[in-house]
């Protein structure tokens, strides 16, 4: 089973840092420790597994959990046409390593995650809001941000 190889290899290579490796609904998923992100990303990107494309980087907010945010990375290997999902738990206020060194589209993806969730990325060249304007306070995609709380930039017409 070729899929199992990637997760098996990861577990063998990083052991402690891989908290969980499974394939729900057919998507290979590996939950890793926060500090091991750069090593594992570098390892996955290099030739044996050649996950050369960072498909997607997003964040999910679980207010109930102790580590509130969960960063979700989808990597894709063009040569072997295989996808893998790397997840890591992130307490609020903590920062996670930025992947702009490995993939160039991480720049905008991380700016979007910062804009929407307030997740900080160490080593990001220019971390500012991507979608909302500079004067917007709060992070809209957090579960505690009300859906209809508008912050108009110009006063409504009298």
């Amino acid at each position, binding site marked *: 089973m070729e899929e199992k190889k990637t997760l098996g290899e990861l577990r063998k290579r990083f052991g402690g840092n891989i908290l969980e490796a499974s394939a729900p609904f057919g998507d290979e998923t590996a939950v890793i420790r926060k500090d091991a992100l750069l090593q594992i990303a570098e390892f996955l990107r290099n030739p044996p597994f050649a996950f050369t494309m960072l498909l997607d980087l997003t964040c999910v907010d679980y207010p109930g959990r102790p580590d509130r945010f969960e960063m979700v990375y989808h990597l894709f290997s063009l040569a072997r046409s295989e996808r893998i999902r790397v997840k890591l738990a992130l307490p609020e206020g903590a920062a996670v390593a930025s992947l702009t060194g490995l993939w160039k589209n991480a720049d905008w993806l991380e700016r979007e995650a910062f804009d929407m969730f307030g997740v900080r990325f160490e080593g990001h060249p220019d971390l500012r809001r991507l979608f909302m*304007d500079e004067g917007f306070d709060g992070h809209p995609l957090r579960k505690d941000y009300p859906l209809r*709380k*508008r*912050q*108009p930039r110009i006063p409504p*017409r009298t």
Partner: protein
Amino acid sequence: MTSMPGHFVTTRFNHILGWARKFSLFHYPYVTACCGMEYMSTACAHFDIDRFGAGMTRFSPRQSDLLLVVGTVTQKLAPVLKTVYDQMTEPKWVIAFGACAVSGGIYDNYAVVQGIDQIIPVDVFIPGCPPRPEMVLDGLLKLQEKIQKQEQDWRWKKRKP
């Protein structure tokens, strides 16, 4: 026609000016979202907005009479829309094209202005998400009717005391 006592010339002149302005509308397509696709169909050969004299697309507020706000206006875009409206030359009219411009449409959330009449005065609202080209042309006809009937404004007009 608003008949002003004793100003026979002005009502006749008012009519002529209204007729001239209604058939030579230069529109500024302020296109942002999905309605833009329907605007393309309206402006192109199949439904042809040019049959009603409004085919001339001007991309500068200085040269346009009609601000056609097409699509969703988000909070970030609101000051831009306000500036473009202010910089338009008189006489100017505004058409809100599509449900998002009319009332925020299906996006009732933190990001979208709930209807552009919160920012600028609007003359004609065209509902629909997106409105069919025929609805757009009908909206244009309604605006032309309004221009014809409204009291025109010109520089040397004797203002009422």
